[in-house]
């Protein structure tokens, strides 16, 4: 087991394309770290550099105290689960799992013992003699996992391993992968573009965009204390609602004003509004933090456009100018389109963003 350190790692393709830019990261021993971002954000490239499958243009990668930057993949003591599983079709399950061990010249009986052990952990011990073509997608996935565990790596890399599974299997595999991580205690880097996957599995999440790290933090951090508009928008379903507001001062009090709302935020925010007097800000609030209330306490009143029942709750959408605001409300009473709803904000959850830098203010 080991830590993983990436120092100023940059990857450039050709002359122009910078896939990863000055990437700095420290992954703790036994941590389950998720690299999260939209496709093309450089998360997979970053992971492939850790594996040694992509050369590093600049910077250092250390596993424990070892500088592995220039080592070929086989000497890094990492293992990897690939997005398409990359299970070798011409080898049996047993040979797939035992491949690395055989290359290490491990004695035969020991290979057999290890393979059986990891196959047991992943529930494929009945399939060892089969070929991948005789397995379902989920079973192939397990073979890939077993193969990766069998080498007892220092770093465990997972490149969107669940994205090819159907929705139901994906959720159950999440639990299993997490359980396996707890058992093996291997430092894990997990790449995904699925924010709910990231939220449910990660000890820490690294959110990337355009090759750069936007925010690093626990799932709670990135959800509740999103560092930028991008993060607030990317994390959560439905995503954060955004409202453009002007800051107005009125006898020392600051108010947030736009054609639809005009309210005085709680004091903890007021502090940070001082620098933005008479300026423009973006207000971010998550759908579950908008509450239905009576007319008197309402910050915002509007007509319901549609309401989407979800069983446990309903998502109420209202339209303000060109923009939709979504609200998560309890399932009862049911709100019908056309009905006027009165809304209030949970003040302590408000996030304010600078429209120029898109970064959150007041942290």
């Amino acid at each position: 087991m080991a830590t993983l350190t990436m120092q100023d790692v940059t990857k450039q393709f050709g002359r122009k394309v910078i896939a990863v830019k000055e990437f700095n990261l420290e992954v703790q021993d036994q941590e389950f770290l998720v690299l999260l971002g939209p496709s093309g954000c450089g998360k997979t490239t970053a992971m492939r550099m850790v594996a040694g499958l992509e050369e590093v243009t600049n910077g250092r990668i250390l596993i424990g105290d070892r500088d592995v930057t220039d080592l070929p993949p086989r000497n890094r003591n990492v293992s990897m689960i690939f997005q398409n599983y990359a299970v070798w079709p011409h080898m049996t399950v047993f040979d797939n799992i035992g491949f690395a061990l055989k290359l290490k010249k491990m004695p035969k009986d020991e290979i057999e013992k290890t393979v059986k052990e990891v196959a047991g952990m992943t529930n494929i011990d009945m399939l060892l003699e089969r070929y991948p073509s005789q397995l379902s997608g989920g079973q192939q996935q397990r073979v890939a996992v077993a193969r990766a565990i069998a080498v007892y790596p220092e770093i465990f890399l997972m490149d969107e391993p669940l994205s090819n599974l159907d929705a139901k299997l994906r959720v159950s595999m999440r639990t299993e992968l997490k359980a396996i991580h707890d058992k093996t205690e291997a430092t894990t880097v997990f790449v995904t573009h699925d924010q709910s996957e990231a939220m449910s599995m990660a000890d820490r999440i690294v959110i990337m965009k355009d090759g750069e790290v936007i925010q690093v933090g626990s799932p709670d951090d990135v959800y509740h204390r999103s560092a930028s508009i991008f993060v607030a928008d990317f994390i959560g379903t439905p995503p954060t609602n955004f409202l453009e507001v002007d800051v107005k001062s009125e006898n020392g009090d600051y108010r947030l004003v736009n054609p639809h709302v005009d309210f005085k935020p709680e004091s903890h925010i007021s502090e940070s509004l001082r620098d933005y007097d008479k300026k423009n800000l973006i207000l971010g609030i998550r759908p579950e933090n908008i509450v239905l209330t009576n007319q008197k306490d309402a910050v915002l009143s509007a007509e319901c456009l549609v309401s989407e029942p979800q069983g446990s709750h309903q998502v109420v959408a209202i339209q303000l100018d060109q923009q939709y605001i979504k609200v998560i409300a309890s399932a009862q009473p049911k709100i019908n389109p056309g009905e006027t709803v009165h809304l209030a904000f949970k003040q302590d959850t408000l996030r304010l963003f600078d429209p120029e830098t898109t970064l959150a203010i007041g942290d």
Partner: protein
Amino acid sequence: MAVAIGNKSFRNVWSKAIPYLLILPVVVYYALFWVRPVLKTVFESFRDTAGQFTLQNYAMVFSDPDFIPAVRNTAIIVVFSVTLEFLAALFLAILINRKFVGSSFFLFVAMVPMALPAVAVGAMWLTGLTAHGWLNSLLFYLGVSKKIYWLAGSEWALLAIIIIIDAWQVIPSVMIILLAGLQNIPVEAEEAGYVFGGNFITVLRKITIPMLQSTIQTAVILRLISAIQIWLIMVLLMGFNRLPVLVERIVYYHEEVPGLDISFQMASGYTIIVSVIVSIAALLYLKVSGAFGGNQEARQ
């Protein structure tokens, strides 16, 4: 540290060089055995025996009494056989376009004529077209007792025979290609045509054939290229000189009149003419197939 850096740059250079090392043999091979001979032919064609620049060689080819007939015959064969083969193959492909029991066997059978070596095809028709051959025998069994002297007809009759033989050899294959193309067209595209009021003919004309366009272009141009090079069947059936075509002239001058000083020049001259024509067709094909258009499938 210095060692590490040295290592890194070595690894870097090495992995960058891999693709070039992999293609180096092809490049060298083509330089030696393709570019060199081609350039040599072109170069030699402008030199006389003393090594001076001359256009004499071409003049000689153009004044060969069989030159015009050879060009004409080749052109006739190319135009007629490609057109006939294409239309017949398209017709058959549309008729057969569905899955059926034994379809894979049928498709293999259809591939056989094209796969046969030219000499085997020659043997087939040589034994068929003689007066006592199997074709007359077959006709006899079918009730036509008069022997037909297939190979004694006019030049036009001979051309027709060549075109028919070529059609036998090629139609099945072109049909397979078009079938494959037809089966690649999503069913929904045609169904949509019917849903929006098209009948069989309009759907065929407005949807199926346009969607088949690239397959058709490939098939036609590749066929064109091989039709230009037909020769062996004629020589086997009719001997040299009877129905001259371009490639037949090359072999004729090289093999049949090797004693003459000029035979190599004549053969080379015809070679260049064939090469130029085929190259134009090939370039046309590459243009149509989009080979000029960058690498669409480059690694991500």
